[in-house]
């Protein structure tokens, strides 16, 4: 495997991890926006508690993708940032608003209008960002963005305003929402009512993924032939089978209330979808003009970057493992977890009382 391919795999792996972690955090925000019923506030609090300790770290996967692309494939980075200027600017607005709203809401001194206003902004930006992020791979795969002699010759609306990209945006939204709801069924272990709420949401969004995926499949034939090629090519059967088994498995597990299994299946399903897209997109960064090979930076930089990534991973994965073990290992242990939740003197989630300090 040449070094560009290794780095392409790193980028794809980071995107998968971003979707599984950061994507689910955005999905949590979607359910915050759509919280309803008698337990709407409890749903919101459960979501906030689940994503609170981890969302900032999860978010860094996206930054890692950005820095690896601009270090290793600088000319592709320049083109992508120009061609997708409009949706990415809006993504930035969404990211800033979501992060600020989340933290302001959590620290809102009184649970009054301030709390509701930040809640609304948190929900709205969580809805917006996955859609806009979904537009980007759709646009890059569409073949509508053209580069000649290192110059972008198509307009700034090319690609991301097409039907396929918009379909990808909607698909990303639904996918992240499904992932988040499935995770939440595990997070809310110990509270049957809440667990039921998220189970219904996971099932509904999981089922909704089907028709969107079908529409995307037919759109891809004309609008994104490389993706269609991947869906019908050599790699397709094992990936399609794995994705379908995971999708059906997730829905089945949710039906029979085996939530840990459901979470695992949903994660596999999402990973398969993104890997499938990556295989279809390879060797292009921007179909059809920019490839990993022709956009690669200086070879010394690529070699050093690979070493740095390996060294970074050696620090990163144990740290992440520790973070998740501390905050996520008790989830699911029913009584223990409920007990912890009430004993918690976590100053951030229970900020209204000052006596704890």
């Amino acid at each position: 495997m040449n070094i560009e391919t290794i780095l392409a795999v790193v980028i794809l792996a980071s995107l998968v991890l971003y979707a599984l972690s950061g994507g689910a955090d955005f999905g949590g925000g979607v359910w915050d926006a759509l919280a309803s019923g008698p337990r709407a506030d409890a749903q919101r609090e459960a979501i906030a508690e689940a994503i609170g300790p981890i969302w900032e770290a999860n978010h860094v996967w996206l930054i890692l993708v950005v820095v690896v692309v601009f270090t290793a494939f600088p000319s592709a980075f320049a083109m992508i940032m120009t061609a997708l200027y409009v949706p990415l600017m809006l993504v930035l607005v969404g990211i800033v608003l979501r992060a600020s709203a989340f933290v302001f809401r959590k620290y809102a001194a009184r649970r009054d209008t301030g709390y509701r206003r930040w809640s609304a902004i948190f929900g709205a930006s969580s809805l917006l960002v996955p859609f806009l992020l979904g537009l980007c791979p759709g646009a890059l795969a569409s073949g509508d963005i053209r580069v000649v002699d290192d110059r972008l010759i198509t307009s700034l609306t090319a690609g991301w305003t097409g039907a396929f990209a918009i379909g990808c945006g909607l698909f990303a939204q639904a996918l992240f929402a499904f992932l988040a709801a499935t995770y939440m069924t595990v997070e809310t272990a110990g509270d049957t009512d809440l667990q039921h709420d998220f189970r219904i949401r996971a099932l509904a969004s999981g089922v909704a993924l089907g028709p969107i995926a079908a529409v995307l499949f037919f759109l891809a034939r004309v609008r994104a032939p490389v993706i269609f090629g991947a869906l019908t090519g050599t790699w397709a059967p094992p990936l399609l089978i794995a994705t379908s088994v995971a999708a059906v498995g997730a829905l089945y597990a949710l039906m029979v209330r085996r939530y840990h299994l459901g979470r695992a299946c949903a994660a596999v399903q999402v990973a398969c979808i993104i890997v499938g897209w990556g295989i279809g997109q390879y060797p292009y960064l921007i179909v059809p003009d920019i490839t990993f090979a022709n956009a690669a930076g200086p070879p010394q930089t690529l070699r050093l970057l690979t070493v740095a990534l390996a060294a970074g991973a050696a620090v990163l994965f144990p740290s992440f493992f520790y973070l998740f073990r501390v905050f996520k290992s008790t989830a699911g242990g029913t009584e223990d977890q409920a007990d912890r939740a009430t004993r918690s003197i976590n100053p951030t989630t229970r900020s209204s009382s000052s006596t704890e300090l």
Partner: protein
Amino acid sequence: MSNLGFARSLMALSLAFHIIFAVVGMGMPLLMVIAEARWLRSRQPVLLDLARRWARGTAILFAVGAASGTVLSFELGLLWPAFMRFAGGIIGMPFSLEGFAFFTEAIFLGLYLYGWDRLSPRVHVLCGAVVALSGLASAAFVIAANAWMNAPVGFTLVDGRITDVDPIAAMLGPATLPQVLHMAIAAYLATGIAVAAVHAWFLRRDASSAFHGHAFRMAIGTVLLTAPLQFASGDVIARMAARLQPAKFAAMEAHYDTRAAAPIVIGGLPDDKAMTVHWAIEVPSLLSILVGGSTDAEVTGLEDIPRNRWPPTRIVHFAFDLMVACGTALLILAMWIGLRLLRRRAVVGSPALLSACVIAGPLGFVAIEAGWVVTEVGRQPWVVQGIMRTADAVTPAPALAVPFIGFTAIYAVLAAVLVFALRSQFIETAPHPRTGS
């Protein structure tokens, strides 16, 4: 304003906004960890209380900092695609390493903020120490990339194409160490005085508060250590600028004529047409002494630099003087405190000193903002000193006024809400039964 003007303004706004949070993200974890480590030794509840209160403020600021930092990493490409295409392969390394440092920071901050009752106290304080260290590392890597823009090395330019790229040499160029030191010290100094100011405010009403007393002493301790160091590092970085970026240095000092026995020009209004500075205070020969060690040393003035390569003199000179003035004020404050300590008198005992600390609270941040104006505006018209002009790096995307206005509005609202949120964190939870005695 032109598209280039809006792109530069948006980048400046994003940097000016983010730098506050980046600095707090370096300084606050250090203070938190010191407070908690002292609690581990002495088991005085007030110290734990303090670590927790500081942690809450840090949590709010860190979230906004993480988001505004993401904005910057995208804006590098969104606003300056030609720069990134040229420089990505050369200075991507420090950015990638910064990515990992930031990862570590975010992971361990999550552990620290949410792990009070899930981790043993020792592990908890260690997590805080990792946050402080990775915050410093992350700043060092970003500064290394900026230092390369000021003093680009580690590649060869042949007919406009780069060859022989050495990313390590690029990362460790001549400007890296001076800039990293100057910025790191600035971060601890600015955070220290800002935190000291908050607690001095409360001490003015109740000098006996153990809570605010501990907090104030710890914060002012960092000021005492860093204010003198910052003067030394400022001298190093200024001499580096004189050597590597004579145009920037001449603009900083509003120095037009190349001459020996060059004076230091304080204040005044630089006049590019007449090549003179109106209404300034001049200290004879001091610039030559500072740069070259003797009054005979010749200092290059703007006259030896083609006009189209001058940075905007007035902005750079004013920003430089503002930075130095803030630094000097903080040094005087540190000396005042040092004198009181030498005479074995309590620092919190003087209302005048406490008032001075309250007033000095924002000065560290003002100095940092002004200092970045010197660095960035002083490098103009270049984005990469001597190699690539800013005008050649800007995106072809139209209507950059729209994102500029949008982000200005968002950042203005966020700043207002932040101040309110931090205020309510302190005021509504401040009175505490244990802290009164």
